[in-house]
């Protein structure tokens, strides 16, 4: 589904990704782990097409298409979803209204009929039930005044409604207490499906206790430096990231001891 080849990307003229390779197939869950500053979030933003992230080399192919040729909204309409690390507030814009606008924009792009408010509400109720989310989020403005946990849940809820083919969760686990983490993890698990790929970008192993990845990759200094199964995440948890660094160039960050 997603094939990334020798990807180099810059932010403000500074090279962050330095020859990253990654392949993700439909139905798989991949975890990308790594210390702060290794380029994890940059990878997510490059895939989503955020302005300011300049690809200088390499290619990203998504369902056979050159992803880098598409605008951010086209990518979204093609089924690329990113759960944000810091979901923004949009004051005065109703959460339901926003989500319906998004879904209908995507449906329109795919030449599907747009959902009217009745049909949309039915879909929303269905998803809320599956995710065990109350409907209080629906009546509020997008992320406005939401707690950290509510914002993350709202991201998962949006993902459930938009039903992307490729979902990238950018540090969705950060800043969550254990209950919120479990709820988010359950949401993600429910969205696992044979035709959907999920990429979890995370610093810690704890989300992976609840969402079992098929593959774990370690990102350091802009490159994938190690691949493995779920046990790689455990190893990172125990030993931190320093063992990956031959010269100790990466910032000193402990994952396991915190």
């Amino acid at each position, binding site marked *: 589904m997603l094939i990334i080849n020798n990807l180099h990307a810059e932010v403000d003229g500074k090279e962050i990704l330095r020859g990253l390779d990654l392949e993700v197939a439909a139905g798989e869950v991949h975890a990308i782990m790594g210390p702060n500053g290794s380029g994890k979030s940059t990878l997510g933003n490059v895939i*989503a*097409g*955020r*302005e*300011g992230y300049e690809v200088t080399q390499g290619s990203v192919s998504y369902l056979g298409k050159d992803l880098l040729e598409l*605008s*951010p*909204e086209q*990518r*979204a*309409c093609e089924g690329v*979803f*990113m759960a*944000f690390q*810091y*979901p*923004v507030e*949009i*004051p*005065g*814009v109703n959460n339901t209204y*926003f*989500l319906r*606008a*998004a*879904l209908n*924009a*995507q449906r329109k*792009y795919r030449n599907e009929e747009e959902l009217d408010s009745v049909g949309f509400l039915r879909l929303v109720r269905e998803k809320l039930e599956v995710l065990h989310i109350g409907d209080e989020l629906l009546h509020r*403005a*997008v992320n406005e005044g939401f707690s950290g946990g509510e914002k993350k849940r709202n991201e998962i809820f*949006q993902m459930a409604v*938009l039903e992307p083919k490729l979902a990238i969760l950018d540090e969705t686990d950060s800043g969550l207490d254990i209950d919120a983490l479990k709820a988010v993890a359950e949401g993600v698990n429910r969205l696992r499906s044979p035709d959907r790929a999920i990429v979890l970008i995370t610093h810690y192993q704890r989300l992976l206790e609840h969402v079992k990845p098929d593959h774990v990759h370690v990102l350091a200094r802009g490159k994938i430096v190690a691949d493995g199964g779920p046990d790689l995440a455990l190893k990172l948890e125990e030993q931190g990231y320093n063992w990956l660094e031959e010269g100790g160039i990466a910032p000193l960050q402990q994952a396991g001891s915190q």
Partner: protein
Amino acid sequence: MNTENTSIELRLEQKYRHGFVTDIEADTVAPGLSEDVIRFISAKKDEPDWLLDWRLESYRYWQEMQQPNWAHLKIAPIDFQAISYYSAPISNKDRPQSLDEVDPKLLETYDKLGVPLHERARLAGVAVDAVFDSVSVGTTFKEELKKAGVIFCSFSEAVQDHPELVKAYLGTVVPQRDNFFAALNSAVFTDGSFVYIPKGVRCPMELSTYFRINAAETGQFERTLIIAEAGSHVSYLEGCTAPMRDENQLHAAVVELVAMEGANIKYSTVQNWYPGDENGVGGIYNFVTKRGMCKEDNSRISWTQVETGSAITWKYPSCVLRGDNSVGEFYSVALTNNYQQADTGTKMIHLGKNTRSKIISKGISAGRGKNAYRGLVKMTRTATDARNFTQCDSMLIGKHCSAHTFPYIEVLNPSAKVEHEATTSRIGEDQLFYCLQRGISEEDAVSMIVDGFCKQVFRELPMEFAVEAKALLEVSLEGAVG
């Protein structure tokens, strides 16, 4: 100069020969302002002597006044002698008595502007008094209003039919000498609306007026007077659009509202005058004086405005809260795009005890727009336990625009409470990207974010007006991003 004077004289002579009340096709007075021109306007309208004297008095005041320059605006010099102060539309011999008689071309123009007069009047139950250039061309629902005892007519008609009311209230809220542009308006106003709601009457429908400027180089000087007697209610809507043009046009209106005991006046404006092109060429100069007087106890005046048009907007709809427990409100969305400039806000003057005022201002700047909020909250010595709440938010779109806030607060009574909140935000790339990442186009995203920003004001507008206002913002912001 000489030739202009001569042509006025010639015209005047002609008029004298045919009598002043005779209607002629498309008469526009030659540019220039003098006592003669004022006499011409007054005579054209067959006004009583006291009104002519009042105009002339205003003119003399005006001559001694200076154009104000304290606003945060760059205004090219205005040649007041280059403006024509009176024009009437080309029409049949007589003014149409009903919409059916209105020039179809005119109705077509209204249609293009999204003002289906027929439909709007019939479907929405709105009485429409359309001012085209300087003379009213159509009034509907007059009969129904008459039944309720409501007077809703053009200002000129009011002068003829209800001179005692006009005489009693004209200039009582905005005096002739109030400011440069108010003085000018008092001297040369041509038409506008007049509303009188009798005691205890709740006006059975929203009163709506559409203003438009048409003939070239014609300033439009409307004069509106609304009087709400004790215990009455009225909601008045005013919207305007202006077609493409090159020269700057001066628009200096005066609106006066008077609310008696327990009366309630809601005045809503959607202002969409031609803003000039994307290089800042052309556009309307909109220098307006709007003021309401809560004259007696427990009265309430509420201003809601959506200002998207005009090259320059200079406008401070205000409330004088004289009656005890009276309430003044101001809800505003002001948008400046390209080279538009706005210096707008309100004045809340608290005189009575326990008076309350609320100010919600939303300024949006895009392109090279300059947007300033300027507001005065004054608690006088007599305003015991008066309260004010002000919220003033600015949104910036792009990097070349600016937003400014100038709050003036004067408190002379220690029991008064004044609260002021202000924020400035940039439509963040973060917000925009969040929407894009969900598949929403940039244009839709911007209008969604802006609409959310303005929600507090939009919900004060009557329903169909709110829809229109939203659409207007979208149109006005086209090309603001990307």
